[in-house]
């Protein structure tokens, strides 16, 4: 499939935005650690991985822009229409963002929280990109397959720290376990469906279902936690409350968005 049927276009764009918004917000949150991470080497790596998330978001916003406005720029590729992608990234009201509550939350500059969140998100993203790589919409399937390779390397990196700190000292293990205890319930917000998810799934644009993806995610997460000596219980809510995936965000989100979009709003048409 090379074009999206008109009756599925809005749902499909919501699918793309839910992925891109997760990545943009997580990249933004994790870049807060640039220059502040506990060791120089991980400071650089953590920042590079945060940039990757934003690069993934850029590619997905470009695709969303080309699907939303197919005639806006003939010949634009998946990452092609930069101004439209920027407008999607930085030019929407808070309620139009479809990121999960899990990526919005402040990590309180707790390194264990930042690492555990990144690990859980990387595992989720790998499972989601795997699912998207089977999409019936070829441009998305190709893009997802490309991003999946990068996401797997992110997961490998995050898993490396999780195991070493979980198996490190008594203090590092306690900090990682405390972070996991705090984050495990919130991680379930990643699985909240966006409006129209069932329709794009049935149409083969987002093949699979939440329950299967949750099992895939657990199969990736739990062996690493076991190697790290950490424990967590994950329960998927079959009917989760309306949250970030459906535009319902925490009060702090607007302030975060104001900061993130500040430069764009100063000069929306600027070329960099």
């Amino acid at each position: 499939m090379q074009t999206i049927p008109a009756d599925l276009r809005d749902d499909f764009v919501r699918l793309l935005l839910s992925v891109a918004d997760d990545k943009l917000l997580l990249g933004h949150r994790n870049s807060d650690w640039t220059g502040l991470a506990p060791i120089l080497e991980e400071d650089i790596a953590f920042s590079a991985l945060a940039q990757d998330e934003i690069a993934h978001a850029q590619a997905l916003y470009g695709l969303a822009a080309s699907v939303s406005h197919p005639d806006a720029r003939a010949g634009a590729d998946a990452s092609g229409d930069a101004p439209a992608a920027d407008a999607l990234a930085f030019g929407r009201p808070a309620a139009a963002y479809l990121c999960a509550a899990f990526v919005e939350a402040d990590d309180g500059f707790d390194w264990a929280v930042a690492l555990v969140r990144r690990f859980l998100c990387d595992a989720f993203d790998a499972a989601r990109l795997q699912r998207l790589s089977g999409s019936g919409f070829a441009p998305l399937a190709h893009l997802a397959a490309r991003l999946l390779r990068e996401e797997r390397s992110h997961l490998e990196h995050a898993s490396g720290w999780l195991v070493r700190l979980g198996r490190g000292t008594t203090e590092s293990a306690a900090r990682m376990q405390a972070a996991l205890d705090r984050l495990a319930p919130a991680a379930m917000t990643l699985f909240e469906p966006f409006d129209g998810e069932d329709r794009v799934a049935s149409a083969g644009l987002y093949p699979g279902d939440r329950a299967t993806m949750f099992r895939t995610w657990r199969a990736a997460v739990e062996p690493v936690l076991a190697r790290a000596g950490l424990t967590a219980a994950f329960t998927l809510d079959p009917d989760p409350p309306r949250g970030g995936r459906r535009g319902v965000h925490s009060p702090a989100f607007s302030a975060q968005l104001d900061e993130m979009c500040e430069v764009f709003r100063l000069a929306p048409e600027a070329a960099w």
Partner: protein
Amino acid sequence: MTMSRIRDHFPRTDPAAPLASAPMGDLDPYVVFTQLRANGPFLYAGWLEAPDAEMALLLARDHYGRDQVCTAVRVIHRADLESSDGLYTLAMPPPDGTEWLVATQKRPGDIFIEMGRVRAAGPAAAMDAARASVPGAATAHVIWVIPADRAVTTAPDDLIWRTTDQTYRLARGYRRDVREKWTRFRDESALAEYERDDLTEEF
């Protein structure tokens, strides 16, 4: 002014207060080499500290592997390095007949480049074998020899340089108008510096 206002909330502690836990000092030094093109030589990239070789490789991939397009990354523990100038000494010699990697620094200040491999019994013999058979080693300023099986290298299918747009990491990634502004600024700065030096010399 901070880059992000969230940094205003960064938890600060009294620098004079005792540490919550004793410093562990459990990170080891590794030297990193990068291969910039398939089948090309491995070039010295820098050093890093990591808890073990596996983590060193992961960190090296996301640090030195991202400076430019890169096809492979290699890390070597400092204790596995023997240097002809005596700066580094191999901690634990390998069995006789081991294969050694040979990296040479042609002149002081040059980077080390992996130039070949030799088989030898011990680091001194490896150094001699390198001088006899590895191109440029006989006249090199410094030679490093490393037991080949102790170097840890990325697998051929490991992703290092990303598949998404990374041109923002490179000078050519900037739009032409930004690049022209930068060139103009740099030229003006160079001229101002030249004029300042000229005035200093004349007066």
